[in-house]
């Protein structure tokens, strides 16, 4: 396909000739290796296990209050599919409306371009301080995490202050977010107190009580909110019909950034649009309930371009591609772009719960990250081809997704793509085990023969769990334990029970095997 006057697109990928995204969406180490490291961190597992189970039950409770929840999910899914199918029209419509009310739109093909645009806007609008550097305040934003904006600004003489409490904890701790909703979920209160006392010059002595720590953050940021000239935000929704942008939050730091500075720069992925203002009636029900398990989050702000006499009078929006068009080109995977970043999928995922978010090596962890990251970059990029295997395919993520993204189906699709693209069997242990299992289960006699070995194996292992296997199977037991072997196979137990019930005496396994 040729586009007249367009520069040639990089032909990096066999699958799609559209360029992949860059920035913090690339796993540099294979998932099994990096997750293995995190599995041994008991503190992290405890913190995450507690947090995910708490949010999980809160979510289930508030979702059960709505008897039209499934219909809302259907509406959410249909609306996002409608957006993707008509994206150029909706983007044009949004651009016209946002611009008509005094907003200025910039388009960025990738992370580098977005970072350069934001840098230039800051240089034009934020003064150089006595320190010789410029300062901006930031609302938590997945898009700016994705493009590595803070790191880039740092090199340009600009300090970007995160104002969300969790992001602040992560930033001050020189750490990385591990969850998209509660980025400091892996930290406990003692760790947070230590970080604050070490990095906040005026904090003084703090206890580990959450209220005390939140108060310290308030004091630390208050002056910045009231004096900083430029703020950077993301957006949860952009309304094509009206040019409206929206940010959903809890603490009020979002409102501070969106309201007090003179200049507001928002970075938003091109996929975040909703067609009509009225569509918010669906998404403002789906998002908070799926995300924090609340009926509604404490604060939501909407603004349409510039509002005369209210808030920033210099309003910019950077519309970001960074691999989104590449993901859109994948007909089986494109619904991953419907994601509204609620994080419900990671809170139900048994794999995420054990490894934590850092193992995914991306701004987007958990089940959605396991599909979104490779879709944005291509499975060929570094270790992103390993991410679709970071799942047990249990389907819990699909059940909770408010816009019904079929994550398990896309995971399987991406695994196939990875095998095709990277031409190497992913897991020799898995292949060997499956080949063996298929040989055994393909014939009842073989199955029975293997089962007959069970009592012996039970004896040999002394009825204890197995925590180390030799050879390639050792890769399995290095991060998991195998439960103690039973004395009898399920089929044998079944046959015995049946025999007892009918009083006909024990059936032999062989007869079963004949079928």
């Amino acid at each position, binding site marked *: 396909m040729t586009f007249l006057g367009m520069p040639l697109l990089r032909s990096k990928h066999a699958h799609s000739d559209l360029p992949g995204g860059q920035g913090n969406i690339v796993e540099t180490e294979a998932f099994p290796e990096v997750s293995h490291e995190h599995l041994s961190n008991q503190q992290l597992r405890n913190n995450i296990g507690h947090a995910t189970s708490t949010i999980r039950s809160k979510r289930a409770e508030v979702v059960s209050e709505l008897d039209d929840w499934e219909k809302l999910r259907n509406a959410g899914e249909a609306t996002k599919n409608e957006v993707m199918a008509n*994206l150029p029209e909706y983007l044009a419509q949004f651009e016209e409306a946002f611009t008509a009310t005094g907003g200025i739109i910039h388009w960025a093909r990738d992370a580098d371009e977005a970072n350069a645009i934001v840098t230039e806007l800051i240089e034009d609008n934020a003064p150089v301080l006595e320190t010789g550097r410029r300062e901006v305040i930031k609302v938590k934003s997945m898009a700016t995490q994705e493009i590595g904006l803070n790191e880039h600004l740092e090199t340009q003489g600009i300090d970007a202050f995160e104002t969300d409490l969790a992001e602040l904890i992560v930033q001050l701790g020189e750490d990385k977010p591990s969850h998209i909703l509660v980025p400091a979920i892996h930290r406990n209160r003692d760790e947070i107190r230590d970080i604050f006392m070490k990095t906040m010059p005026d904090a003084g002595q703090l206890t580990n009580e959450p209220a005390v720590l939140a108060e310290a953050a308030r004091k630390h940021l208050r002056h910045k909110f009231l004096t900083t000239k430029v703020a950077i935000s993301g957006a949860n929704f952009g309304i094509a019909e009206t040019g409206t942008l929206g940010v959903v939050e809890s603490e009020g730091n979002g409102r501070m950034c969106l309201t007090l500075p003179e200049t507001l720069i928002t970075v938003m992925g091109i996929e975040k649009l909703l067609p009509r203002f009225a569509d918010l009636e669906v998404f403002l029900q789906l998002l908070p309930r799926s995300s924090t398990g609340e009926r509604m989050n404490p604060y939501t702000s909407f603004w349409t371009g510039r509002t005369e006499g209210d808030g920033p009078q210099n309003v910019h929006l950077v519309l970001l591609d960074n691999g989104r068009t590449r993901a859109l080109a994948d007909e089986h995977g494109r619904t991953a772009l419907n994601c509204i970043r609620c994080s419900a999928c990671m809170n139900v995922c048994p794999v995420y719960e054990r490894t934590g978010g850092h193992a995914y090596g991306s701004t987007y962890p958990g089940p959605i990250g396991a599909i979104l990251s490779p879709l944005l970059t291509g499975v060929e990029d570094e270790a992103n081809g390993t991410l679709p295997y970071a799942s047990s395919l249990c389907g819990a993520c699909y059940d909770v997704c408010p816009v019904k993204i079929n994550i398990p189906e896309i995971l399987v699709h991406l695994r196939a793509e990875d095998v095709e693209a990277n031409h190497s069997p992913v897991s020799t242990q898995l292949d060997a085990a499956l080949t063996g299992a298929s040989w055994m289960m393909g014939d009842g006699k073989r199955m029975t023969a293997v089962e007959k070995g069970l009592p012996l194996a039970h004896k040999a292992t002394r009825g204890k769990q197995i925590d180390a296997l030799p050879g390639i199977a050792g890769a399995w037991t290095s991060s998991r334990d195998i439960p103690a072997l039973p004395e009898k196979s399920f089929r044998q137990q079944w046959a015995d029970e049946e025999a007892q019930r009918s009083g006909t005496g024990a059936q032999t396994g062989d007869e079963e095997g004949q079928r």
Partner: protein
Amino acid sequence: MTDTAREEILARINEALGRRGGGEYVSSNPRSTTSAPGVAGPEATAADAGYHHEGTHTGEDLVELLIDRLVDYKANVHRASGDPAGTIAELISDHSSIVVPRGLESAWPAGFSGEVNVDAPGEELSVDELDAQGAVVTASAVAIAQTGTIVLDGSAECGRRAITLVPDHHVCVVRVRDIVDIVPEGIARLDANAALTFISGPSATSDIELSRVEGVHGPRTLDVVILSE
């Protein structure tokens, strides 16, 4: 630079969607639920899905539901009928100065003995002045009972966004006639072009071990006065 980026991104999208010549949308995905090319009308999705557009609560039940949800979010709820001045005066009696938007009913803060600063176009309080106010008193545009949400729309009696954000105490009057049951009814009453703030309880965070702390950056105290007329 950015114009080129715009054209290129739009061309990429057309290619990704399998459109030929950048115009017509051709779906080869059997799962796609959209068949019509171009921008679909407002009836395309929302109305077909069959979720509730209207709630079932009315009258006192509706008010009770709102109160229940507000209290759940740790807002303080008070009721007044006719003239709320007495209730408001009591709530703000500890402060020496308050701010009110230009269009607030002048009778509402009349019982307050301290200084009343009116924030109006051309006479806006500076951020530092707002920071020095003990409280802000405003009206509201809509309240959604099911979620305990109060919406401010930047109108003359709600004020610009900063005045309800910087002072640590927000007293917000909700008229019973502005209470709706569910979110779709609330959205339907709003003007998208207004600067809107949805408030569900005071500022809160759960970022430290998921234990909820009220009051981080927004007002730490939210008093809601429900006004029957």
